[in-house]
């Protein structure tokens, strides 16, 4: 196994497959969200397409999106309008470059991995801004401005939460962060950073939800007010890519990132379970975070933009600064 | 809240509005009075502000087309304090129907007067924005007037044997 992984071509193939998996993964995640949401709401959700519990529902949706007419409004800025799906998708997909699925199973183990992910994840907002401006629609413009304001408010707590983890590990490389979590070992159990960074984890989840513009922080797309905000004018495959695919890919990306930072990434929970490939553990941990995100989505109403800003600047950022200090203090205590 | 019987309330209304209105009567537990258009603003103000009447609740304003006898504007107010309804009937001439607006006293009369104006063609003098409420800007005619025939009947008579408007004997659709 280890030899095969060392082979350059096999590695390249594996790296490429990560990107190829992403689109089907959005379909699966979309279906999972439909089913979880349905069961939380005392419904069944899709039951017919594909036979077994409507597994092909999102696939059918995808085909429907492809077949739909692709409309560009007459007054839209055509080139910018058409570029949006690529930008939002790219920003989302770039995250996966540095997420390690094993000690060597990573596309690029960047020295600044943490900040690379944070930078890549905010590229999507540029796409939203482009969509809002180019659509020549007031609702889109308002949605885009909300998204931009939200990004500024939430990037900071996200960075600070990740910084605390980087302090714990003493490195910005995601592989090093996972290895650092593997080094904390009690009776064979690998202890991830979660117990030490529980505050940071909550800040990370909150900020990630805001960054993903998912409820309760979905003001930029608020369908009851702004009618999916920046993407009001998008139709067909462009709509599917710029809204759904981008949202689900960055959701998976940020969840995998969170799993790497706080839950030990590809590290198994116990040294005896090393024989199971790291990618399985990463997947399980990612799914746990995804479930949390989905759970929150189907539970809470939407905040107001100014309330969100207040929450971010007056509560979350001070809290994450305190968390940084606490982490520093933890690092200085001799028994760690 | 102190409840007052309609007869007692009618006595109060008639004593307060003696020289402003006439024809006081109690029908189905509601007090009714006739008011000349020139007096309507004073009457409504008295009804609203007088502590013994306190008709602060604006129920509705609408019209009735009595054809040759002109129009009748109906205003219904309610006193939440005393639990009584006061209805006012304002006769308005058929030619150039017009009466003063009461939006100065009840701002809510705004929409009601606009509706009555477009439906009956009654002019409410002094209304701040007497444009059409429901109908499109370029609509011609006043639909609730009796000489305005139901549009579907103009194009096609009722297909059944028994058009209720004919069967009733009057045939005044």
């Amino acid at each position, binding site marked *: 196994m280890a030899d095969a992984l060392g082979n350059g071509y096999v590695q390249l193939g594996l790296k490429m497959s990560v990107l190829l998996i992403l689109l089907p993964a959005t379909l699966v995640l979309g279906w999972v969200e439909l089913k979880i949401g349905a069961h*939380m*709401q*005392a*419904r069944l959700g899709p039951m017919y397409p594909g036979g077994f519990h409507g597994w092909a529902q999102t696939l059918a949706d995808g085909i429907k999106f492809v077949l739909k007419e692709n409309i560009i*409004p007459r007054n839209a800025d055509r080139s910018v309008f058409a570029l949006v799906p690529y930008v939002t998708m790219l920003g989302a997909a770039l995250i996966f470059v540095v997420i390690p699925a094993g000690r060597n199973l990573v596309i690029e183990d960047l020295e600044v991995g943490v900040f690379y992910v944070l930078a890549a994840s905010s590229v999507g907002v540029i796409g939203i801004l482009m969509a809002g*401006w180019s659509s*020549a*629609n007031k*609702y889109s413009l308002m949605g885009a401005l909300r998204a931009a304001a939200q990004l500024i408010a939430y990037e900071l707590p996200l960075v600070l939460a990740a910084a605390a983890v980087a302090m714990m590990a003493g490195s910005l490389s995601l592989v090093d962060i996972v290895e650092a979590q593997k080094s904390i070992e009690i009776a064979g159990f690998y202890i991830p950073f979660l117990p030490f960074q529980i505050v940071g984890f909550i800040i990370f989840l909150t900020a990630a939800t805001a960054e993903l513009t998912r*409820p*309760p922080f979905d*003001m930029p797309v*608020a*369908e*009851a*007010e702004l*009618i999916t905000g920046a993407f009001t004018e998008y139709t067909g495959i462009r709509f599917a890519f710029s809204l759904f695919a981008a949202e689900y890919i960055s959701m998976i990306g940020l969840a995998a990132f969170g799993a790497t930072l706080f839950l030990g990434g590809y590290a198994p929970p116990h040294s005896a379970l090393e024989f199971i490939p790291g990618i399985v553990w990463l997947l399980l941990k990612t799914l746990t975070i995804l479930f949390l995100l989905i759970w929150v989505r*189907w*539970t*809470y*109403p*939407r*905040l*107001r*933009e*100014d309330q969100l800003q207040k929450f971010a600047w007056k509560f979350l950022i001070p809290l994450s600064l305190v968390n940084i200090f606490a982490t520093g203090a933890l690092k200085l205590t001799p028994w760690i | *809240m102190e409840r007052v019987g309609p007869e007692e309330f009618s006595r109060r209304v008639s004593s307060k509005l003696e020289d402003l209105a006439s024809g006081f009567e109690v*029908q*189905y537990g*509601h007090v009714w009075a006739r008011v000349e258009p020139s007096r309507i603003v004073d009457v409504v103000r008295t009804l609203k502000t007088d502590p013994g009447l306190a008709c*602060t*609740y*604006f*129920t*509705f304003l*609408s019209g*009735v087309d009595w054809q040759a006898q002109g129009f009748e504007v*109906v205003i*219904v107010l309610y006193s*939440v304090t005393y*639990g009584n*309804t006061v*209805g006012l009937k304002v006769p308005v001439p058929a030619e150039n129907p017009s009466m003063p607006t009461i939006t100065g006293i*009840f*701002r*809510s009369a705004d*929409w009601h007067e606009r509706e009555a104006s477009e*439906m009956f063609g009654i002019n409410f003098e002094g209304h701040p924005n007497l444009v059409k*409420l*429901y*109908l499109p800007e370029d609509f011609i005619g006043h639909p*609730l007037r009796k000489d305005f025939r*139901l549009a579907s009947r103009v194009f096609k008579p009722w297909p059944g044997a028994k058009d*209720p*408007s004919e*069967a*009733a*004997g*009057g045939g005044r*659709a």
Partner: protein
Amino acid sequence: MSTLIPTTDRWLREARLAGDATLRTEEMVLNIGPQHPATHGVLRVVVTLDGEKIVEGTPVVGYMHRGHEKLFEQRDFRQITNLCSRMDWLSGLNNEIPASIAVERLMELEVPRRATYLRVIMAEINRILNHLMFTGSFGLELGATTPVMYAFRERELLQSAMELATGGRLHFGFIRPGGLKEDVPRGFVDLALRGIRQLQKAIPDYEDLLMGNEIFKARTVGVGVLDPDLALEYGVSGPILRGSGIPYDVRKAEPYLNYDEFDFNIPVGTNGDSFDRYWVLIQEMKESAKIVEQALLDLPAGSHIGQVPKRLTIPKGAIWAKAENPLGELGYYIVSDGEAKPYRMKARTPSFNNISVVPHMLRGAYVPDMVAILGSMFFVVGDIDR
């Protein structure tokens, strides 16, 4: 549209030409509706925005005007009750009641006790159905997708009970002057009781799900405060007026049918904000459930319709009859000239007055608040436009 959103270049150039080095801001006019999820129906609100703040918001109505009042003049009184149910399509049965009461008072018809009881039962079930719809959709407008699903779950049994009795799920057409179209079938009482019991069990869940939620409170407490005096001046009625602290309910103020024989309370809010209106709605469901329970357990035997002549000829005269619709005070002013159809029939619908006060509430609110305000004004566009 290009004039509405100036490109950056032109904007800058204009600013320079005006001798103003700084960028200027301007107010934006935004059309919310007539096709917009927050206006459920075809209400249009023209708002002038300063950023996200509403400077001025004006509802524009009439997209669903169907000329009910003209149609009333073409129908006889038996047909009119069916026409009435189309005004507020969420509470069809409640719309029929005052129309038939007006005719009964004019003709001095006697309504049998069983019919009166059944009218109360069905009117209150219809009120619960309506309130469930609005509690659910209010959550939906604030972004909470779950309450509406729960509400529809509880609606189903009650809806089936109504369907069993009337054959309709939305427009029941069950009230006739003098009584009811027909007696309720076997099983109605049990089914309705089951529905009520299920609802009573579920209401605490609704309260926990939204009213205990911090985000929900942040979005609704202090938002869209309606001053009680303003509410009275505008003739606002129903849960909205009671949310502002005025205990005016036609069922208590001027009892019709036999509401005076039942034991129920009028829930009254204190602050008049969106939260209080929602709270009143939930409490009213409890009270309605109480009434239905009492009436079902006490349902007298007898005929479902009184002595009604074959042809309804109404004596000359005029009458103003009102009832408590789920959304507020619904009344009809009927002028009869002694024929089978009314000479004039004015429908005073609650949503019309309720929505006319909205400009006062929108001023100074944010765009998301507008959704909370409109959602808590509980209107049906068919009821505004008639």
